[in-house]
C-alpha cells in the first residue's frame, strides 16, 4: 500500500471511561505523524447504550480541532449515514472523510474469561497465560487440583458469567479422565454468557487431543464448542498461539456482537488493504498494547517491561530472556478511577500516605478516593489532589508489578537436566523471569502516566513503583496511543512504526540505581558523566540521595559509574561500568535511595526527606515542597 493512499487515518480506543481518538496524517517531508487528539465519555451505558455515540463525539472533537489547526472549515470526518445517524466517512474525498478507521476496545469490562486446567500451576497456568496474552481478564482458574470440592467448583462456574471459557488440561497422550471430569463440571454448571442470553457460551478446548471426542460428547450440545491445538502439548512446551487466535475470533464473532452498538462499530472499522476496502477487526486494547511491546523488544533486541494503568485495570507486560518470553498480567481491580477504592483497600492507607510530602486528614483522603470512584472521569484541579492521585498510582503500579512477577515464571513441571555448572544454581522451574537488573527499558502508559503535567512526575512514579535496578532506560507513551498503533500495525506497519518513533514513545531518560545494603552517609555511587554540552558531572553520591542531570532528548552521555562498597550496578558487586547513558525529556537520574531493600522512613524524618527528593527531582512546584 503506498503512502499516497493513506493520508488520513482515525484510530480510537474505546476505554471503560473515555473514548480516545487520534488523527494520523501523512505529511510531505515528515512521513506519518499523529497530529490531533480528541476524547469523549464512552457510551456503552444507559441511556445511550451505543458505543458509536462516544466515538462520534470524540471524532467530532478531532474534526473541530483539525479545522482550528489548519484554519480550514472544509475538513470533515463525519457524515450522515444511511439511517440518518452520524458516522465516519470512508473513503476520503479531498478534505471530506478519512482513508481508514481502526479501533481497539476495553469498554464494558473488556473480554472476561474463565480458564480451566488439570494441574493449576501447569496446564491451568498455560491456559491463563494464553487468555491474558489475548487481552482477557481472567475471572478464575479452575483446576482439578485447586483444592476446591467439585460442588464448589460447579457453584463458582455457575456464578461467574464469563464471555467465554478456555479449557486446557493434559499433555497430548496424557490424562483423559481429569480433562473429561472438568468438562462434566462445566456442563453441570451450565454457565451463561455475560452479555445476553441469546447465544450459547463459547468454550475453546485446547487440551489433550486424545480427549477431543469425549469432550465433544460431554459439551457439544450445551455450548458453542471450538476445538483447537493443545496449549501444552508436552510439559516442556507451550503452544499458546492457536488458542489465542481462537479467542480473538470468538471475541469478534460473539462478544463484540453482543456489546451495545458494536455491530455498528465493526462495520465502521475499515480501510484499504491491497487496494481493496476491507473490514479491520476491533482488537481488545491490551492485545494491541502487547503487540507494541513485543515489537520493541524484538526490534531493539532488549528486555522490556511495560505498564498500562487505566481507570479500571492495570496491565503489566514484559519481554524477558534471550527467547523473548512475553508475559502479560492484568490486575483487574487496580486502577485510577473505577478501581481506585480497591487500591486503597489492597495497599492500605499507610502505604499510600508514605508517598505524600505533607500531612493529610485520613478521613478526607478516604472520602476523596471514594468520590473519585463514583465520579471516575474527574481530574485533579488542585495540586494537593494531583500529588495524592500520584501517590495512589505508585501503589497501584507496585501491586500490579508484584502480581506480574509472581506470574511471569518459567514453565513449571519441566524435567530439568542439570550439569555440574548448574548444580549450585538455585533457580528452579517456576522461578520468576523478571530480572530488574538486566531490564533495559521500562515503558509507562495510561492516563496518570501519559497525562501527568510534568514528565518528571511520570519518571518518579515509574521509579518509585518499579524500583529499577542498575541502569534502566525510562519511556512513556506520550498521549496514550499505544493501543491505537497496535491495531494500526495490523493494516499499515509503516504508519504505525513511524508514528510510534516520532510521536508516541517519549524517552524520559535513564535511571542509575545501585543495588545492595549500604549505611547512611557512606558513598553509594561515584559518577563521572561527560554530558553532550561539554560539561562534566562528577560526584561521589552518598546513600539516600537523588540527582537529576539534564541530558537532552536524542543525545547520550559517556559515563563511568562506580558503585559503593558491596553494591552492584549491573556488572557485579563493586564492579565499575563504563557506558553511554541515554538522555531524555527528564534526563539522567542517579538514585542512591537503595534497592533490595528500598525503605522509606516511617518517623518524622519522612516528610522532609520526600520533600528533598521531590525538589531535586523537580516533580512539583517549589511552593508546595517548602
Amino acid at each position, binding site marked *: 500500500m503506498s503512502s499516497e493512499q493513506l493520508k488520513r487515518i482515525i484510530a480510537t480506543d474505546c476505554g*471503560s471511561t473515555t473514548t480516545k481518538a487520534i488523527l494520523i496524517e501523512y505529511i510531505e517531508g515528515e512521513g506519518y505523524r499523529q497530529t490531533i487528539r480528541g476524547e469523549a465519555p464512552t457510551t456503552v451505558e*444507559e441511556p445511550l447504550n451505543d458505543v458509536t455515540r462516544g466515538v462520534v463525539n470524540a471524532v467530532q472533537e478531532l474534526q473541530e480541532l483539525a479545522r482550528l489547526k489548519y484554519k480550514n472549515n472544509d475538513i470533515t470526518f463525519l457524515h450522515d449515514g444511511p439511517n440518518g445517524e452520524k458516522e465516519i466517512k470512508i473513503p476520503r474525498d479531498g478534505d471530506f472523510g478519512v482513508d481508514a478507521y481502526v479501533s481497539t476496545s476495553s469498554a464494558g*469490562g473488556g473480554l472476561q474469561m474463565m480458564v480451566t486446567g488439570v494441574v493449576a500451576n501447569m496446564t491451568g497456568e498455560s491456559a491463563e497465560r494464553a487468555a491474558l496474552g489475548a487481552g482477557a481478564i481472567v475471572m478464575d482458574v479452575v483446576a482439578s487440583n485447586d483444592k476446591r470440592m467439585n460442588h464448589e467448583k460447579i457453584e463458582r462456574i455457575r456464578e461467574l458469567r464469563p464471555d467465554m471459557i478456555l479449557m486446557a488440561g493434559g499433555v497430548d497422550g496424557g490424562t483423559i479422565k481429569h480433562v473429561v*471430569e472438568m468438562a462434566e463440571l462445566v456442563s453441570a454448571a451450565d454457565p451463561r454468557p455475560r452479555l445476553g442470553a441469546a447465544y450459547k457460551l463459547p468454550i475453546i478446548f485446547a487440551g489433550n487431543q486424545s480427549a477431543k471426542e469425549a469432550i465433544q460428547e460431554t459439551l457439544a450440545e450445551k455450548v458453542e464448542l471450538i476445538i483447537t491445538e493443545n496449549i501444552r502439548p508436552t510439559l516442556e512446551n507451550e503452544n499458546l498461539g492457536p488458542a489465542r487466535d481462537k479467542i480473538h475470533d470468538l471475541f469478534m464473532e460473539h462478544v463484540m456482537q453482543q456489546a451495545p452498538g458494536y455491530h455498528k462499530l465493526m462495520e465502521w472499522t475499515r480501510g484499504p488493504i491491497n487496494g481493496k476496502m476491507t473490514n479491520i477487526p476491533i482488537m481488545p486494547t491490551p492485545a494491541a498494547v502487547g503487540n507494541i511491546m513485543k515489537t520493541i523488544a524484538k526490534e531493539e533486541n532488549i528486555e522490556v517491561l511495560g505498564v498500562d494503568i487505566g481507570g479500571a485495570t492495570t496491565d503489566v507486560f514484559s519481554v524477558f530472556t534471550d527467547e523473548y518470553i512475553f508475559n502479560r498480567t492484568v490486575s483487574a481491580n487496580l486502577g485510577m478511577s473505577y478501581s481506585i477504592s480497591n487500591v486503597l483497600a489492597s495497599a492500605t492507607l499507610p502505604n499510600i500516605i508514605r508517598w505524600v510530602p505533607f500531612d493529610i486528614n485520613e478521613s478526607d483522603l478516604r472520602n476523596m478516593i*471514594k468520590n473519585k470512584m463514583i465520579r471516575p472521569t474527574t*481530574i485533579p*484541579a*488542585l495540586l494537593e489532589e494531583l500529588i495524592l492521585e500520584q501517590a495512589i498510582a505508585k501503589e497501584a503500579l507496585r501491586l500490579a508489578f508484584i502480581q506480574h512477577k509472581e506470574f511471569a515464571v518459567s514453565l513449571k513441571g519441566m524435567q530439568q537436566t542439570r550439569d555440574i555448572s548448574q548444580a549450585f544454581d538455585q533457580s528452579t522451574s517456576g522461578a520468576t523471569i523478571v530480572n530488574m537488573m538486566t531490564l533495559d527499558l521500562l515503558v509507562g502508559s495510561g492516563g496518570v502516566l501519559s497525562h501527568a503535567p510534568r514528565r518528571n512526575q511520570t519518571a518518579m512514579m515509574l521509579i518509585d513503583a518499579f524500583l529499577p535496578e542498575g541502569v534502566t532506560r525510562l519511556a512513556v507513551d506520550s498521549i496514550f496511543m499505544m493501543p491505537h498503533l497496535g491495531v494500526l500495525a495490523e493494516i499499515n506497519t509503516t504508519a504505525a512504526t513511524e508514528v510510534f518513533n516520532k510521536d508516541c514513545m517519549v524517552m524520559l531518560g535513564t535511571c542509575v540505581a545501585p543495588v545492595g545494603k549500604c549505611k547512611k552517609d557512606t558513598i553509594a555511587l561515584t559518577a563521572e558523566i561527560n554530558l553532550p554540552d561539554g560539561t562534566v558531572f562528577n560526584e561521589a553520591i552518598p546513600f539516600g540521595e537523588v540527582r537529576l542531570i539534564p541530558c537532552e532528548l536524542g543525545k547520550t552521555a559517556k559515563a563511568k559509574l562506580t558503585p559503593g562498597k558491596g553494591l552492584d550496578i549491573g556488572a557485579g558487586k563493586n564492579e565499575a561500568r563504563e557506558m553511554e547513558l541515554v538522555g531524555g525529556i527528564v534526563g539522567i537520574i542517579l538514585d542512591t535511595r537503595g534497592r533490595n531493600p528500598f525503605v522509606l522512613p516511617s518517623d518524622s524524618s519522612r516528610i522532609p526527606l520526600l520533600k528533598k527528593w521531590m525538589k531535586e527531582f523537580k516533580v512539583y512546584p517549589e511552593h508546595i515542597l517548602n
Partner: protein
Amino acid sequence: MAQAYSPGLSVTDNIVLRKPRILPLKGTVLVKKGDKVKAEDLVAETFLPGNVLPINLANKLGVTANLVIEYLKVKPGQQIKKGDILAESKGLFGLGLFKSKVVSPIDGEIESISQHTGQALLREPKIPVQIKAFLDGIVEEVIPDEGVIIENKSAYIQGIFGISGEVTGELKVLIKDPNDVLTDDLIDESCKDKCIVGGSMVTLKAIKKAIELGVKGIICGGIDDQDIKALLGYDIGVAITGHEKLGVSILITEGFGKIKMADKTFELLKRFEGKKTSMHGKTQIRAGVIRPEVIIPLEFQDSELIAHETSMPLLEKGTMVRVIRQPNFGIIGTVTDLPEELHTVESETRVRVLEAELENGKKTTIPRANVEVIET
C-alpha cells in the same frame, strides 16, 4: 466549541419511565400487556436449576469407570429421594458378600452419569425466582418467557451511590434544610416502613436506629466512607452494590463526606412527602452503569406516556452544573462560557475548561471533566 457533552444525573418532577423487569433466565410471565400493576405485584417467575452434587460412583464402588454402568440402579433423568440406592456392587464372587452400595444424599434428579470418569451428577430441586413490578405502573410490553417492561409517569431522582436492594415506602422528610445532618434523634417509631430523607449527611448512629425501627430507605446528600465500612464490615473496593442485606436501603445524592443535598433534589422530595416511593441502592459504576434511583409514581393518563428521545446532556452557556470535585465540590453554578483553548489549572494540568458563575456569586474556571450537568 460552544457546546460539549457531559454526563449528568436526572432529577425531575415528571418523567416517563420504562423499567425492564427481566428474569435471570427464561420462565413464565404472569401479567399481560396493558395490566395495571402495583409495586408489590409479581410479574414473572422462574426456577433456577438446583445445585449440583457430584458423586464419583467408580471410586465409591471400587471399580473402574467403564464398569460403573453394570452396577447402576438409576438412570439419567430419574427423580430420586434421599437414601435411594444409586449403584450397588454384586459383592464377592457375585454372591452378594461384602456388597458395597452408594445412596443418594439428596432429593432431586440424576443429571448424568459418565462412563469416562464414573461420576454421577445429582441435581437438587429447582429454586424459585420471582420478580416483582417494583413500581406502580402499566405493563407496556411483555417479552415472552423473559419478563415485562413497566411504564409509568414519575418524579425521579438518580442518586450517585447507594447500598442494598429494592424497597417501597412512603416518603418522609426529617430535616428542614438541605444542609442539615440526619441524626439518630430525628428518627422515631413514625419512620417505620418509610423512606426517610436527610440533608448533607447521615450519621452511623442514625442508620443503625433506622434499621432497628424498620425504616425502609434513607435518602441523603452524603455519607462518610468509614461509616459504610463500619456498617458492612468491609471496605467497598469496586462500586458494585445492591446485594447487601443491611435491613435498610441507602441512596446518596451527592457523594462521600458531608455535602449539602442539591436544592432542586431537596425541594422535589419535600413536594412529594407522603407519596408512595420505590427506591433502591443498586450501584454499578463500571461496565453498564447502574445508578440508585428514587421513583415516585404520579397519576397519569395512557396518552401521557410518550417517552422523550434519550440524549446526552449538553454543556452550553446557561447550563446548570454541579461541581463534582474540589475546589468548590458540591456547589451549583451556571455556565457562562466554554473557551476552546486548553487552560492550565492549579495542578498544572492542561485541560478544557468552562467558566461558571456559582450560586454564591463567585465566578470561576472549572475543568469540564469536573462538572455534572443538572438535567432540567
